[in-house]
């Protein structure tokens, strides 16, 4: 018995502050948030009734919320495809061997050092939708290069607008995805490539059967990281357009609901966002836990 305490006592003592703090400030607050989302607290007054899932049904029946989901979907699609494609291309080109690799690496990785808010302010100007005489930003550049036909309303376009919002995000995170892929490439032993070449594999077959399969865990991690960042997007949109209907995503809608004192609605959106992220993250955590166990 005493030996038992000696064994698990000190480690428990060591982690207990973290457990308590996490318990209160993460899980406790998630619980509090969920309980608000199940109440009818639509104003500054205290909640009166437990309303079950009414707020969730009301939200999914709301045109405005569906619009924000559509926007989020568009953004996520372009953001993930963009960062994965560019990240992979750059990593592949660097892996093929270029001179001054260090310079390229820093150039591509550098945008990550800038916050979404700071780059959002710059891109707000670059993505200005005025055309012709009053054009500025990218439209002005197109105009002065004689490429006037390329001018477009950017994020003001009702259907494709969110793709324009994704541009700064792609610019910022492609370098990170590149770094992930590059480490993946570098993690593949040279012997494997040599062996494949000895066996007469063409360059394409080498990539198709030897290298790509080994990159898939890296690709999955990149997808998860970029994907969950995309679902949470808030600061970028606030910096570029502020909270307006046209570029509304669940996170900015949450802010609007909260500042108009509709606590129950804000809590409901927050819970839905948490579920979205969980849907993405939890299977990933299970997968990594399993594969770690398998390796052991």
């Amino acid at each position, binding site marked *: 018995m005493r030996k038992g305490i000696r064994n698990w006592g000190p480690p428990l003592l060591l982690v207990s502050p973290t457990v308590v703090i996490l318990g209160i400030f993460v899980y406790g607050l998630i619980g509090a948030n969920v309980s608000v989302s199940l109440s009818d607290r639509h*104003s*500054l*007054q205290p909640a009166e009734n437990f309303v079950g899932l009414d707020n969730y049904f009301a939200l999914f029946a709301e045109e405005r919320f569906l619009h924000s989901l559509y926007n989020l979907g568009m953004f996520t699609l372009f953001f993930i495809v963009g960062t994965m494609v560019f990240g992979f291309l750059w990593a592949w080109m660097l892996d093929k061997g270029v001179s001054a690799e260090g310079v390229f690496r820093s150039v591509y990785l550098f945008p990550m050092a800038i916050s979404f808010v700071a780059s959002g302010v710059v891109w707000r100007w670059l993505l*200005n939708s*005025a055309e012709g005489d009053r054009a500025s930003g990218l439209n002005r550049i197109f105009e002065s290069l004689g490429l006037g036909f390329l001018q477009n*309303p950017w994020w003001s376009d009702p259907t494709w607008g969110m793709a324009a919002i994704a541009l700064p995000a792609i610019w910022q995170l492609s370098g990170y995805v590149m770094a992930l892929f590059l480490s993946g490439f570098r993690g593949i032993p040279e012997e494997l490539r040599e062996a494949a070449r000895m066996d007469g594999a063409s360059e394409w077959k080498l990539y198709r059967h030897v290298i790509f399969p080994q990159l898939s865990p890296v690709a999955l991690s990149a997808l998860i990281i970029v994907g969950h960042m995309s679902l949470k997007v808030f600061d970028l949109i606030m910096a570029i357009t502020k909270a307006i*209907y046209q570029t509304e995503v669940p996170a900015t809608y949450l802010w609007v609901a909260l*500042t*108009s004192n509709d606590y129950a609605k804000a809590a409901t959106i927050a819970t839905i966002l948490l579920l979205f992220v969980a849907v993405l993250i939890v299977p990933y955590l299970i997968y990594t836990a399993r594969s770690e166990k398998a390796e052991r």
Partner: protein
Amino acid sequence: MRKPLSLIAGAAVLGLALAGCSTGGGESDPGNADQVEVFTWWASGSEKVGLDALVKVFNEQYPDIEFINASVAGGAGSNAKAALASRLEANDPPDTFQAHAGAELTDYINAGQLQDLSSFYEEQGLTDVFPASLIEQLTVDGAIYSVPSNIHRANVTWVNTAVLEGAGIDPTKAPADIDAWIDDLQKLKDSGVESPLALGTEWTQMQLLENVLIADLGAEGYSGLWTGDTAWDSDGVKTAVDHYGELMKFVNSDFAGLEWDAATQILLDGNAGYNVMGDWAEAAFVQAGQTYGDEYTTWPTPGTDGVFDFLADSFTLPVGAPHEQAAKDWLTTISSAEGQKAFNIAKGSIPARTDATASDYPAYQQTAITSFADDTVVSSLAHGAAASISWSGDISSAVGKFGTDKDAASLVSALVAAADKALG
């Protein structure tokens, strides 16, 4: 031994520094009666200048009371409102806080967070010096919960005289109604002005719509929208929405991303003929060195002549304010003739009191003072006077949607739904 000692010493110094931050100058102390903590979002520009002028008068009138500035910057007040909500939630209210007068206070009133100031109005004789129509707009179920420090007008059309003259339009005479205005806009467009009407982001669109609603429904019909007397699917509203859609054909394509000052700048630069904006825009023209009546002029938005679409910054007395008497002293200062004069000349607005001397103010303000005394006063939607925060939020989103799809029928049905939700 030395290392832990220096660590402890370091921690102690850090602790002291942090303690210094929290108690050093300018912190509200409930035990000290000679303090007043005033919560605003006036942290920069002409608003900060106005607040400073107000504080100067306050210090003269009440030299014993320490003024504690609890302003929260940014986001046109939305950051401040979020900070305020959490303070009220935690039962830690400031002694007085700034809010738009009118319906925006509804949420606080319903939650029982504000004190009734009717007796204060009587003590100070404010019921006599504020116009009766203003008192009426401020009264909620027989009680008044805020004291306005200034009045702004939201139905002002700013006109670039040179642009209009270029198209052969007389800038000094306002078109009689929206239809006549649309004809003038068409003339401007035909003469080569690409976007004759400068427009900005969501709330400025909402302000334009509210101007059109006043023009088409009249003062009484418009005020009825907020009490349920005017139906949101009535023919008048449908006409207004159609008019609004017509006007949207003459606006700059990049409106969705522009703050109001960027939209006004289009007019200043001569790329537009008109801009509908509240009278705080005056400061932009003055800063650009333009003269009223010369390079620019104003008239009430066509069809709204004789109506004063008002909004006001005002101060409240929260329940449980730690320094209640000092807060009342602050309210006395901001409602006094002297306080209103100092503040409004600095901020570019007009005083709520009718006994102000008009000649103290610049040219535009003089016209506004006259109208405020004579016209019918209605409450502005875009600035929290007419509808509660959540109602105007719903309208704002519907207007933003219309900006992209131009679907009049869906705008009307969204407006009806918003009103049904708000009026219950």
